[in-house]
Structures are given as structure tokens and as C-alpha cells.
């Protein structure tokens, strides 16, 4: 089970955003999309989740093209957490979370809601107005919302499900960053395919099974963190000196800039 990206190209307003991207994102693993600003990470994610149509190439999810799924089928197949969500009216956080309920028994959904809220430490926020939450608190609520959408209804035929997360940790403190990515790790172990746009290369090195390094809409490198995270490659990619150290104390690559 996997997402196959076949020779993908995307133009927006006459500008090449993505060109010739080929990759395979396996379910049961965490795939990180990294690269400098404007490299096309978010656009690639938006194509993968079906929001943008590529000009060339195609995306296969478990062997079927994106177009072959209905909106409802896709909603059960994958969830998406976008960078920012502005809510105009005073919904409570709980009401926002409940929007993820698609079908099936509601009490089972609520049990799961409770579990995830406790796991991500948002239980104390559920009765607060969503608009009154801080940026980080909103982000945690939206993460739980996304998780619930696919977790509450596992497919009976054993087909895989996917989480698409666009910079889910951008407003989080260090502890909550780790919690969120640990939850992603647990989901991946349960068979979910996780695709995350992430700027923090240290987090990527710690949690990713595979990293896709993008540069100006092209795939610069793809592979396991130790294959992709190379000081010279990163230095030229970001245009600043970056040193990658294999730190024996923590047992992984540490990126210094």
C-alpha cells in the first residue's frame, strides 16, 4: 500500500511550481517533505490530497488514481491538516473536533475523541471557544480533528489510510512538538501513511522514515534521513552553512546551522 507520485508537474499562474516529481510514499511510514521556502512542499501536499490538479503526471493511492475516489471516499481515506484555519463564528473546540465525525456510531467516535484529546493534551480546552485559543492550542486541536477523521473509521477491507499534515508543529513548544510527532509515529505503526511538511530538520531526522528534499519544484533527494541529510547538500540547498553531526549521545543525526 502506498502513494505513487508519477512524473508530477504543476503550474500556477504560468509559473512552474512542481516539475517532474517522482516518488513513492509507503503506508506505515512517516514521510517528511522538506526544503527551503517556495520549494513546492505545500503545493505537492495539496496535489496529493486532491485540492490541486497537476498539469502533468498523476497520483495513485493504493493503485487507483485520485479522480477515481469520490469526495466521501477520500474523506475516509485521508485527512488533511492545513497551515491555517480561521473560524469566524464562536464554535467551541469540541464542536470543531466533532466536525470530523463522518458516519458510524457516534459514541465510538466520542470515545476516540476523548483518547486523542488526552493524548494530545487538549482535553482541558474542549469547552473553550476555538477563536480564544492560542496559535499552538489551535494547532493541537486541529491535529486531533484531522486524526479523528480517519481514525474513527478504519476500513474493513484492510486498505490503508493517510495523514497529510502541513507544518503541524509551526506554533508548538518543544514538548508538544515531540508529542505530536510521537502520535504520528504511533499512527504509522498502526499502518497509516503519514506525510508531513516539516521545516525542522532535527525533527525530520528523528522521526522520518523517509525524507523528500525539494528544491525549486524538483525533487533534489529522497531516502532515509542518513541518506538525505548531508551537510554539503543541505548547505547548497538552503544557501547557508549547515553541519550534520552523527551524535552518538542521542543516537541520531543532529543538524547545526
Amino acid at each position, binding site marked *: 500500500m502506498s502513494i505513487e507520485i508519477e512524473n508530477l508537474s504543476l503550474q500556477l499562474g504560468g509559473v512552474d511550481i512542481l516539475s517532474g516529481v517522482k516518488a513513492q510514499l509507503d503506508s506505515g511510514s512517516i514521510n517528511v517533505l522538506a526544503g527551503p521556502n517556495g520549494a513546492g512542499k505545500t503545493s505537492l501536499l495539496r496535489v496529493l490530497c486532491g485540492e490541486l490538479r497537476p498539469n502533468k503526471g498523476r497520483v495513485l493511492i493504493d493503485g487507483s488514481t485520485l479522480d477515481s475516489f469520490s469526495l466521501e471516499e477520500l474523506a475516509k481515506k485521508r485527512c488533511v491538516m492545513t497551515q491555517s484555519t480561521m473560524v469566524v*463564528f464562536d464554535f467551541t473546540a469540541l464542536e470543531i473536533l466533532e466536525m470530523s465525525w463522518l458516519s458510524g456510531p457516534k459514541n465510538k467516535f*466520542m470515545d476516540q475523541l476523548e483518547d486523542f484529546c488526552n493524548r494530545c493534551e487538549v482535553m*482541558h480546552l474542549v469547552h473553550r471557544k476555538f477563536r480564544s485559543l492560542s496559535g499552538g492550542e489551535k494547532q493541537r486541536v486541529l491535529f486531533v480533528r484531522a486524526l479523528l477523521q480517519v481514525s474513527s473509521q478504519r476500513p474493513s477491507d484492510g486498505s490503508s489510510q493517510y495523514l497529510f499534515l502541513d507544518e503541524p508543529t509551526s506554533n508548538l513548544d518543544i514538548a508538544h512538538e515531540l508529542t505530536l510527532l510521537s502520535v504520528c509515529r504511533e499512527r504509522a505503526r498502526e499502518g497509516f501513511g503519514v506525510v508531513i511538511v516539516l521545516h525542522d530538520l532535527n525533527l525530520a531526522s528523528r522521526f522520518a522514515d523517509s525524507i523528500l528534499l525539494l528544491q525549486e519544484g524538483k525533487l533534489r533527494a529522497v531516502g532515509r534521513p542518513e541518506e538525505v541529510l548531508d551537510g554539503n547538500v543541505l548547505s547548497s540547498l538552503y544557501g547557508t552553512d549547515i553541519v550534520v553531526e552523527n551524535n552518538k549521545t542521542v543516537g541520531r543525526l543532529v543538524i547545526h546551522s
Partner: protein
Amino acid sequence: MISKTDSPPRTDSAEIATGRSSRKIKILILLSGFGVAFLTAIKIGAVPIDLGDLFAGTASFVKTQVFYNIRLPRVILAALVGCSLAISGAALQGLLRNPLADPGLIGVSSGAALGAISMIVLGEMLELPDELRPYALPVSAIIGAISVTSLLFVFAQSRRQFAVVTILLVGIAINALAGVGIGIFQYISDDSQLRTLTFWMMGSLGRGTWDMLVPAALLIGVSSLLIFKSSRELDLIQLGEPEAEFLGVDVQALKRRIILGSAIGVGAAVSLSGMIGFIGLVVPHLVRLGVGVPHKVVIIGSAILGAALLVMADLVARVTIPPAEVPVSIITSAIGAPFFLWLILRERNL
């Protein structure tokens, strides 16, 4: 992994469930409020009517006639129009994700008025069969409302970031344009048409008759149903259009349904009572503040409160200087306009 010393305490599901039943109670309170408003309004007027006498059959002939042919249809019309304007306002605010959207402010009512006026002035040329005539005015008002709402969407979508301001500005432009159209029709209309038109434009619920109520109730029923059935989708679109689509909502279909639903509601209301402002703005907000924000609650609550409010406003309009009447739109605007200003202040602070 990491251990946190002050992790928040676990909460159980009993705590999650609170707040649900209190909404039902609040809706029931609204409903009984509507009941009181309705009973008061059918009792009080230029001719006071004792309901006890009426149902016992001891009321005078005149009082019975006034009650069944004037008072009751008028109050029912007020309830229908109030309900329809409030539901349409709730739906448009939800769809446009804009708390300032009101059928009157954003030009939908003007579009409906222009449609209705063109039918008053040009309708005779169509030589419609008699049985279709009661529907001609509402239908052309609905067409006017649909055109304006669709136009609003074109503008709201091209510049999503500025949707709040854009929609109000487009509303001003549409109101002005509709004014031009209405002026032209006034100019080319003959004396009797002009009289009909002028009375109609002043906005009154006094023209409620039973044979007008049937098509109105039918159209407003269709409109409310279309909107109510979309209440979950209206909730989901609050997360944003792409996000709603990720959750399985066909956003374009939702837009078509809400545009059609609210245009039918506003068109039917305007064709019956002329332009009555601010009900569609004020009522959904009061419901959100007092009952809750999910659209299922907002729509049911707006239907009841909108009906109650317009019934009361019409009562005030009837009893202030009897037997003359204050146009009901003056009453609703007197309440609504300051409320609108307060809303702008409130939104600015966010």
C-alpha cells in the same frame, strides 16, 4: 518518552456531554416566546379581540370577520416572513463566512424587489392565466434574488481574503443599481401601477390574505428545507472551503443549494411584504449568542426568533398610532441599525 510533571487532569465523557440538553431547553423557551408573541398579536390591534369570546362563538360578526380575514392572516404572514428572512440571513452568513451578511445589506432584497417591481409594471403584458398570477410576483422576486446572490459570489470568490469588505461594498453597488432599475420602472409605470408599487415598497404586512399565504408558505417551506438539510455542511465550511472538501463536502453543490434556498426565501418574503431590513442580520446573531453556533441550532433558533420578532415588530407598528400604521421596516431598522454598528465594533476588536 518525555514525562511532564503538570499534565492536565483527564476529563471523562460526562463532562463532554454537558451543554447539549441546555440547548434544547433554550429552543423550547424561544418556542414558547413565539407562542406568547403570536397570541398577543392576534389579540391586540385597532379592534381588540377577546379570544375566549371568539372561540365560544359569542364575538360580534365584525370582530369575527376582522379576526379571520385581517388579523390572523397578517400575523401568520409576519411569522412566515420573519422566519424566512432570519433563516436566509443565517444561511448566507454561514456560507459567506461573514457575520455581516444580511439579505438587505448585501443587496439580495433589492434584487428581489427589482424582480417584483418589474412584474408589477410589466406583468400585464405577459397575460398569465389566473391560477398562475399569485405565483408570478414571488417567482420574479426569486429570480431577482438569485441573480444578485450569484453576482455576489463571483465577487466574493475572486478575492477571498477581503470577502467581508468586498461583499458589503458589492452590496452597496447592487443596492444602488437596483435603485436605478426601480426608478426607471417608477418612471414608466402608469398611475395605478405607481400606487401599487409605492405601497408595496414601503414594506408592510397588511396585505396578508389567505390566497397569498398558501404560495408563500409553500415557497418558504422549500427554502427552509433546502437550507436546514445543509446545516452540517454549513458547519464544515467554517473550517474553510478546501477543508470542507477534505471532509467530503461538495462545496459547489452546497453553494448552489444555499444560493437557491436563500433566494427563494428572500424572494418570497420580499414579494409579500416589501423590503424589511435587519431581521436577517440580527436574529442569527442573537441565536448564536444565546443558544449556540452550530448551524442546526442557528437555523431552528432563527426560524422561531425571526418569526417572533417580526410578529412583535408588526404589533408595535399597528398599535403605536392606531388606526394608522408605522411602516414595519422602520421598527426593524430602528432595532437593527444600532445592532449592526455594535457588530462592526465587535468584529473590529477581533
